[in-house]
């Protein structure tokens, strides 16, 4: 019994992923859909508080350490792996499906990691698997974006590793517990976590890389990396004040950049950062209600963001187009995709009866309870902004707006089923929040459906909608991008490095010319004295040898006398 119950639940996904390329298509589908369900079963049969510990080089590793928070995240990761697999089954490459399963398994591994070493191993596996997902479309754009993604995440991994080494050296323990941010090592760990969360200044990797993945690839990417980062921040740094500032920046950065964006999936990528910002504010506030809110929001966000990306991915799959300027009017021929996209858009905007309503409001309520006036007003303004940039902008420009003349049908059955499943969950979680509330780490003392809350949310959102349609002429899409911090490493540094590289190149060439001249001088001298005609290589007559011996003996004799 205990032997079965203590299998780290992420493991079957990672190992199963390696088998996928060896399977027939039918068996592959069975594994892609069956393994996430097996993982769910493994998660929920764990005895409460189970710990599997292994002695390794004198440290106690805990590849499986159960907690309510770990179960919550592992559950949603497994649900996501199932729905993502279902959605991608018809169009994702085999290697891509494997990479998606490895990233799901790694994210679940992170959720159950009780020590920093296990955490790091799964952290790096997640980065590598995600890079493969970006690369899977095999376009020059995805190759470059994937490379940038990899470099940044390996950099984050190095920060994390350095922090972990410092932490272990200082405390002697590898345990992964809440940290007080009182040593440089812990700051390094925080920095490593924040890079994966999409925090400033290194956030541009997300809208840069994710939209280059395939439709199903981006669905998988959206769920694991940033939310695994939310999980480790929840575990490691609850109540760290600095996170409030990071979170608020991300919330507004996401809105403003999404408002200016033309690529539909990049709009949704910016809105991932926006939503993770809400969670990070909640972690920074750090009360039980705020942490519950952040955890609940991660759960609901994974589902509605995946739904939005499935909707956008279906449009991309059926039309091959990704820019709002090329799209529009698709509700006529893709009604199911449009309805599912709208349900996802309502959920991300926290409309009553959708999942966002019951999770995000816990975060703003906790800000009010702590009398964080500025934070609360910013969060309310941002809630309005979410409706603006994701809630209306995405469905409006893709499915309505002008008539693009495109009349593609809804996508194939498996993609439709994936969308229907998640659209159902968005509404079910919103209408019956109790099951989710029971999974949260702390007891929930919060009732989302009060008359005042429903009315105030409706007022906020509907008047944001009014603002959108009044300002519509100013929101017209153009063929533009908006520069981000990545300009520094994509444009400034390479350009600044250019003269330096040229100078180094010239210097190296001059050096090599000089060196060659010196070497040839040296060889010439060597040849002069030691070559066939050289003075030191000549054959000497025996007579001259005798003469020199006589002279030497003569000098010796003279020296002896005096």
């Amino acid at each position, binding site marked *: 019994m205990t032997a079965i119950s203590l299998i780290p639940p992420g493991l079957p996904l990672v190992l199963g992923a390696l088998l996928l390329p060896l399977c027939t298509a039918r068996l592959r589908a069975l594994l892609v859909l069956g393994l996430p369900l097996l993982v769910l079963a493994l998660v929920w049969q764990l005895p409460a508080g189970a710990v599997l510990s292994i002695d390794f080089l004198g440290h106690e590793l805990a590849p499986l350490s159960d907690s309510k928070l770990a179960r919550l995240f592992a559950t949603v990761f497994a649900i996501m792996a199932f729905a993502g697999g279902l959605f991608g089954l018809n169009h994702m490459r085999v290697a891509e499906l494997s990479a998606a399963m490895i990233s799901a398994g790694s994210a679940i591994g992170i959720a159950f990691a009780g020590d920093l070493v296990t955490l790091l191993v799964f952290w790096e596996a997640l980065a590598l698997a995600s890079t493969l997902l970006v690369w899977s479309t095999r376009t020059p754009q995805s190759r470059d974006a994937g490379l940038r993604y990899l470099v940044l995440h390996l950099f984050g991994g190095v920060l994390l590793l350095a922090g972990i080494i410092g932490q272990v050296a200082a405390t002697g323990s590898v345990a992964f517990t809440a940290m007080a941010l009182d040593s440089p090592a812990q700051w390094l760990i925080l920095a490593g976590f924040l890079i994966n969360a999409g925090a400033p200044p290194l956030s541009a990797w997300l809208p840069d890389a994710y939209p280059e993945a395939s439709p199903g690839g981006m669905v998988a990417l959206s769920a694991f990396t940033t939310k695994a980062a939310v999980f480790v921040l929840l575990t490691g740094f609850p109540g760290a004040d600095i996170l409030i500032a990071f979170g608020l920046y991300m919330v*507004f950065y996401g809105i403003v950049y999404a408002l200016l964006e033309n690529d539909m999936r990049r709009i949704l990528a910016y809105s991932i950062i926006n939503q993770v910002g809400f969670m990070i504010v909640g972690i920074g506030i750090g009360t039980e209600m705020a942490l519950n809110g952040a955890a609940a929001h991660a759960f609901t966000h994974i589902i509605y963001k995946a739904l939005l990306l499935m909707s956008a991915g279906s449009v991309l799959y059926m039309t091959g187009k990704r820019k709002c300027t090329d799209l529009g009017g698709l509700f006529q021929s893709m009604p199911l995709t449009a309805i599912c996209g709208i349900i996802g858009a309502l959920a991300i905007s926290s409309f009553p009866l959708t999942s966002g309503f019951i999770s995000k409001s816990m975060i703003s309520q906790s800000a009010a309870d702590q009398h964080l006036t500025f934070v609360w007003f910013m969060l309310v303004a941002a809630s309005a902004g979410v409706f603006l940039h994701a809630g209306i902008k995405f469905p409006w420009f893709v499915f309505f707006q002008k008539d693009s003349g495109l009349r593609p049908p809804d996508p194939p059955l498996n993609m439709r089923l994936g969308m229907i499943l998640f659209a159902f969950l968005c509404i079910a979680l919103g209408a019956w929040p109790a099951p989710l509330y029971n999974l949260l780490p702390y007891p929930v003392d919060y009732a989302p459906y009060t008359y005042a809350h429903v009315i105030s949310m409706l007022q906020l959102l509907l008047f*944001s909608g009014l603002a959108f349609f009044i300002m519509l002429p100013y929101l017209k899409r153009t063929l533009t991008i908006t520069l981000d911090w990545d300009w520094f490493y994509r444009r400034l540094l390479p350009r600044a490095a250019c003269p330096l590289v040229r100078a180094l190149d010239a210097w190296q060439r001059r050096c090599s010319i000089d060196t060659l001249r010196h070497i040839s001088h040296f060889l010439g001298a060597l040849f002069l004295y030691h070559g066939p005609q050289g003075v030191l290589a000549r054959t000497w007559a025996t007579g001259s040898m005798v003469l020199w011996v006589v002279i030497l003996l003569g000098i010796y004799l003279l020296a002896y006398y005096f």
Partner: protein
Amino acid sequence: MKPHWLVRPGSIRLLWIVFLCILALTVLAGLLVHPHAAFGIDGSFGFYTWFGFASCIALIIVAKLLALLLKRKDTYYDGD
């Protein structure tokens, strides 16, 4: 072919009227809310209506100002 019901000018006008009616209803429904404000102003009548509206306008203006500085053609990085 007749255009879809949703895109006919008549229906768009109708949708606007319905939308404005719903807006008015939510404002009126606010009268029945028992105010329990955390900061004072958020309990005032219609706070969420004007705050939501103003936030969105402000966000759009900020975005447009930022765009003046940071907007580039979407081929900007091509060839790098």
